[in-house]
């Protein structure tokens, strides 16, 4: 069996994702990551990665509305409370805290069967259930060092799957995930757009950087607003092209998820299936939108 990350390596990966401190440059050095030059640059990079692009919460990936909190966060909180973690003061499902708990379990697992059991549960139920598409998004959207951090995290966690085999049954977090998208029956453009931005339902993650890519590709105007608003505006401006772009993006993400199935088993299959279904649905919608445009004579 190949090596897995030490508890301290996991802790350092957690620490570097927290608000930048004077120690962050040392963390980056130890992890072999490119370090921003000044404290202000660190703040900018951190804000860009975790506030503007990819909020580091399980609930934003797994929850019903793609927002912080709710039942998905409560499940994490309950689990961490069972471990004895103090989960009162912060959103309970923030990634650095989960990693820190996981590091603790890794350390104890060698000598404590219950900790080993909890480690497996934590890994599959509360980390790998959402973190791969999330890290992929960070890697696409965050500046250094967090793009590199995401790659490193991904490799470290994939190595964990060698030590802790995937479960046979889908983790509860994914069993309780919102149903797959039903774009064909969405009440409105707004509703469809909001649904697309719920990762567990759509299987894909669309960050602001992703939307900026769309804007460039579509030669549309850049809209500085919420993702839902910006995406809604793109669809309104040019539905066929936007839907085409989204379908291609969903397909790319589905391919990335399929590549993970070997390591992630049912969890990888879940995300790949959802992303794939979203790509298909978007293809259909794009066709309908094009047909409408042709029949209405619009250009």
């Amino acid at each position, binding site marked *: 069996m190949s*090596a897995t990350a030490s508890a301290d*390596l996991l802790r350092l990966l*957690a620490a570097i994702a927290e608000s930048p401190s004077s120690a962050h440059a040392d963390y980056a050095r130890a992890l072999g990551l490119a370090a921003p030059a000044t404290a202000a640059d660190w703040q900018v990079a951190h804000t860009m990665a975790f506030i503007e692009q990819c909020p580091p919460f399980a609930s934003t990936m797994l929850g019903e509305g793609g927002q912080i909190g709710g039942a998905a966060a409560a499940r994490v909180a309950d689990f961490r409370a069972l471990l004895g973690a103090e989960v009162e003061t912060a959103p309970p499902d923030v990634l650095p805290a989960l990693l820190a708990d996981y590091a603790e379990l890794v350390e104890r697992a060698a000598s404590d069967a219950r900790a080993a059991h909890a480690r497996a549960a934590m890994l599959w139920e509360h980390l790998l259930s959402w973190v791969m598409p999330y890290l992929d998004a960070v890697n696409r959207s965050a500046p250094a060092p967090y793009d590199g951090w995401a790659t490193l995290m991904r490799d470290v966690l994939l190595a964990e799957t060698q030590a802790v085999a995937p479960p046979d049954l889908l983790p509860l977090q994914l069993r309780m995930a919102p149903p797959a998208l039903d774009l064909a029956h969405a009440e409105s453009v707004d509703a469809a757009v909001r649904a697309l931005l719920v990762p567990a339902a759509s299987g894909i993650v669309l960050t602001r950087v992703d939307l900026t890519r769309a804007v460039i590709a579509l030669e549309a105007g850049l809209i500085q607003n919420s993702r839902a608003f910006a995406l809604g505006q793109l669809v309104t401006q040019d539905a066929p092209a936007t839907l085409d772009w989204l379908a291609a993006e969903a397909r790319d993400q589905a391919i990335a998820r399929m590549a993970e199935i070997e390591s992630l088993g049912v969890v990888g299959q879940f995300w790949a299936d959802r992303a794939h279904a979203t790509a298909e649905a978007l293809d259909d919608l794009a066709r309908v939108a094009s047909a409408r445009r042709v029949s209405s004579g619009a250009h």
Partner: protein
Amino acid sequence: MKPKNWIAALNARVSAFKSETESQGKTFYPGASRIDLASFPPKEHWDDWIALEPVAGTGKRQEKHYMLVPTTCFNCESACGLLAYVDRETLEVRKFEGNPEHAGSRGRNCAKGPATINQVTDPDRILYPLKRAGARGEGQWTRVSWDEVLDTLAERIRKAIVEKRHREIMYHVGRPGEDGFTEDILKAWGVDGHNSHTNICSSSGRAGIQYWMGYDRPSNDFANAEVILLTSSHLEAGHYFNPHAQRIMEAKKRGARLIVVDVRMSNTSTHADHWVSPYPGSEPAIFLAVARHLIEMKRYNREFVRRWWNWHEYMTAERPDEPATFEAFEKVLGELYADYTFEYAAAESQVPVAQIEAVAETIAGAGTKLCTQNWRSAAAGNLGGWQVSRTLFLLNALLGAIGVEGSTYPNGWTKFVGKRPINAGHPEHWNDLTFPLEYPLGMNEMSFLLPHFLKEGRGTLDTYFTRVYNPVWTNPGGFDWVEMLSDESKIGLHAALTPTWNETAYFADFVLPMGHSSERHDLVSTETHNENWVTFRQPVARAARERLGETITDTREVNPGEVWEENEFWLELTWRIDPDGSLGIRQHVESMSTPGERLSLDEYYGWIFDHSIPGLPDKAEAEGVTPLAYMRRYGNVSIGAVGEALYENEIPPEQLEDEHVDPHGRVYTRAAAPPQVNGAPTPNPEPDAEGRRPAGVAIDGTVRAGFPTPSGRLEFYSSTLAQWGWPEVALPTYIKSHIHRDKLAADQMPLIPTFRLPTQIHTRGANAKWLSELAHNNPVWIHPQDAEHKGIADGQRIRVETELGFFVAEAWVTQGIRPGVVACSHHMGRWQFTGSTDHHQRTMETTLAHDGGHWSLRPVEHKQPLAPQSGPDAKRVWWTAVGVHQNLTFGVHPDPVSGQHCWHQAVRVRPAEPGDVPGQIHVDLEKSDAVYREWLAMTRPADRVSPDGTRRPGWLLRPLKPTAEACKLPDSVSS
């Protein structure tokens, strides 16, 4: 491709890094810091916190260095912690956020906390002391020096004291915001001049609790409760709502059930498992039906009731023909409440039987983890409203849910007030203008009747202070206040101490600019949960400059303009009243370390922190600072969790010297009382006939601490009420409100005017632009059925006719109010006169006119509500409404027992007449007199009912406690 052993290599590198880090004496991994997106700047960075801020117009950001200085919010009584972000370059406060070190609020605030920055930077602020020019109310002012103000006031007050006209000095407070300071000053002057707003606020809520357990406020352990019963919209408003709301939500997350009793749909009722919307005033009928259910089903805590209720006293006094046994009492208890069936409660409240039954079952399942809360709401609205809180607390008393985990606690346990260095005796006279004979059981000063008392010739005032209080706008019958304040023969000098302009300040002789929460000192503790803590409000610029090594001795040095803080003002005024010490006043404010000099606030608070706050000196020492420096740095200190069931504490034999036990088990002793560390307001039950002090209560052969009530037990039966003229309401019972259906004409409906807008701050909201944007109107809520019946459409102008006149408002047709009831929120309808000079506040420009007793207020038509005329905000004020000042049209309704103004109104609602404009008011003051006399006639004055020749039961709480001689009925009435 990665090398095969890359993880092992990385592990090794991390391990080396860990060794290197630890060899330097540093921590490799300090644990999850919780410095994530929702957390706070860690306190070790408070001296130099770097934040990135946008540079206007560049799309870039720059580093900004801040000093974070804690203070305490002043915008409601919760006293939440704030962190002021003080710009290190300019030493100006740039914003306020929550203080994570605050034990009550834990870093969280409501919208009003951060909006403090609006108040601080308000362009309309009063920055200098002003003196009236021209007649009172003309709105003409000249700037004067603080010296002139102080000398004028000191001379008048000194003269009044020397001439034994102590009663003519009055201090009338709206937002207290500090524990005890001003009371201490008044005591130093020997003046019984404290007048609070409490009788328009929480007196009835308090009275119902005080008659049970002595303490007058509930304190709630919401976080650990199983069932929470709120008679209010407490998740969004009311005392301590922000610290409470966060704990209620924690309990809900744990699975606790939430019951909300509120006529109106609020942001609180939407979170409830049971939202009960009763006909207003019928709440006690519901609570008594629940009590009956507990009693009948034998689901009450029998052992608790047997040990802690004063049933023996009740049986002896009221059932002399029956055996004074617990079994006999239980039988009587069942009989007493037999009529309060679910069906009866449903008929009174118009709430379905099934819902009342479901609520009763939920409560029955709470065990001792029932947490109930009522502060204003129904208690403040109704005649007999004090029985709302008394019948509500009956449920706690039946379940034994008092002072134990998850229950309702006495606030005297969870609030902490330390000893203070200013320590004069109590006044030697009794002020009839605040505690008149007609209201011997009045919980607090009869403040809102002052204009009527002066009009009747009961007295005059030489010097009258209003302090962060706006009675013209806040109290019922504001035109009576305008009339009184305008009359120099009634009020010799009126000084308005206020941080903002208000309707009352227009009728002042001096308008004195006082500080907001970041510009003043106060020490506060509130009963937010099962923990004692104190919080320090401080002028943050002063604390910041001191951190940088400066010495500041007067807050005016750092405040904007000449804004002062009250505590320094009171100290200086006291010093000048008695410059040579011949009146025995000056010594109370003399420095302890430098006799001959005036006490400074550093010395005052330093003394308290050194001597009166347990554990604080140790915490400070651990950080190598003085206790004062510790509080200036963190703003809050926890004294620790409060024990459970303190009433069960055994009294040691050495505290029972010459013990005497009365027939009901009250134990008296001659042993000196043990020193009290916590000076939170606690009643002092009276000594026995031989002068022994009450020490506890004998329960099953053991003397236990008990409660600070006359009997030492929970008073199901109040001998005080029975002996002071109200025997028929001495038990928890249902008093039909003045707006009970039986008392209304067919075309009248109740108006609920008590509820608050969660983002407003009484008078001071108009000066907070963010808050004004959030809430700026108070339409009248009316149910669609009623609207249809009256031919009123949504948004239509309506006239609401009260006893005194009418007001014009807009209708809001909504199912959020029950049919047959209308509601209009507090907080809105701020006004100022045409012709006044400042035109920035979000108030309406009005004309005020009167013809004899007929007063009217009319917004100037075609004028937008006043808004900034220039600057960026001129474009941002998009809203035009300011609402209506409905209180002007309300007559005074003092409850004959508690003294509380009973706010609910019987009104007629109809479409407005042509020419009516929203905000318009008309009032006939003759009717105001008639309403006053009608309610006064319900009283049972002390000279008729006092059982012992005193004016008021001596054990009841009172801010100042005049000497025994002063408490006696005056010779003129007792002989």
